[in-house]
């Protein structure tokens, strides 16, 4: 049997990697993907806890997370398309019109 701790550690690692990607990557789509990665890591933790407690709550919640992630991806990518058309670039550092 795999101890729950292992799953949690894996979830933490994936989350950390997701954060690193979020901070370091410059392509806006890649940043978006890192957000998806973080969400997945959280899903893993949910399911791990659900298994540990023998309750289905965690899994139901995972379903909701997935639904939300889908909706978010749809709208987010729409925004990305618009911004990319506007600024002619996918580099997130080019979107700096709010600079003081």
């Amino acid at each position, binding site marked *: 049997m795999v101890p729950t701790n292992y799953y*949690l550690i894996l979830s*933490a690692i994936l989350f950390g990697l997701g954060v690193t990607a979020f901070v370091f990557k410059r392509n806006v789509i*890649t940043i978006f993907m890192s957000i998806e990665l973080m969400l997945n890591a959280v899903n893993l933790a949910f399911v791990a806890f659900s298994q540990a407690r*023998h309750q289905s709550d965690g899994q139901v919640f995972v379903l909701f997370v997935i639904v939300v*992630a889908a909706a978010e991806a749809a*709208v987010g990518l729409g925004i*990305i398309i618009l911004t990319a058309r506007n600024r002619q670039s*996918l580099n997130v*550092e080019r979107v700096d019109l709010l600079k003081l």
Partner: protein
Amino acid sequence: MTPQLAIFFVLAMLAVLGAASLIFQKHPIHSALSLIVVMVALAGLYLLMGAEFVAAVQIIVYGGAIMVLFVFVIMLLNAGAEEHTNASKLAGIAGIPLAVALLGFLAVVVARSSEGAQVSVQSGALANTKEISTMLFKEFVYPFELTSFLILVAILGAIVLAQREKS
């Protein structure tokens, strides 16, 4: 080393490698593909834990819909390899320490939690799909309806956003 543990390690390693690859790839399409690998690995892990419905949903929705969406957008926008600009000094300086700090924190939190030492007794299937659906439509019916509304809003938003200019 039980078989389950071995499978766990393999899948875990796959997920981590995929995530690392997401960071280090230069072209977004490669990052997308790496992310798909991560998701499949995670689906495998869900299966290992006995949550087959979630695993299925993961593959179908995440892998089959969301990632496809990502790939389509990359294609649409003709995303090229990443440029090397460095406008943000802060990210350059604080990035790695932050990531390390975060990882450290989470590791400490996980390590100290009392939950972990437990080993779940049943590895078999949790009375799965039926239970999930019962819970979904009984206790979580309100959030469920809300999510349907959320999806509607997302659809509308996506359509409005992606319209061409009426020129």
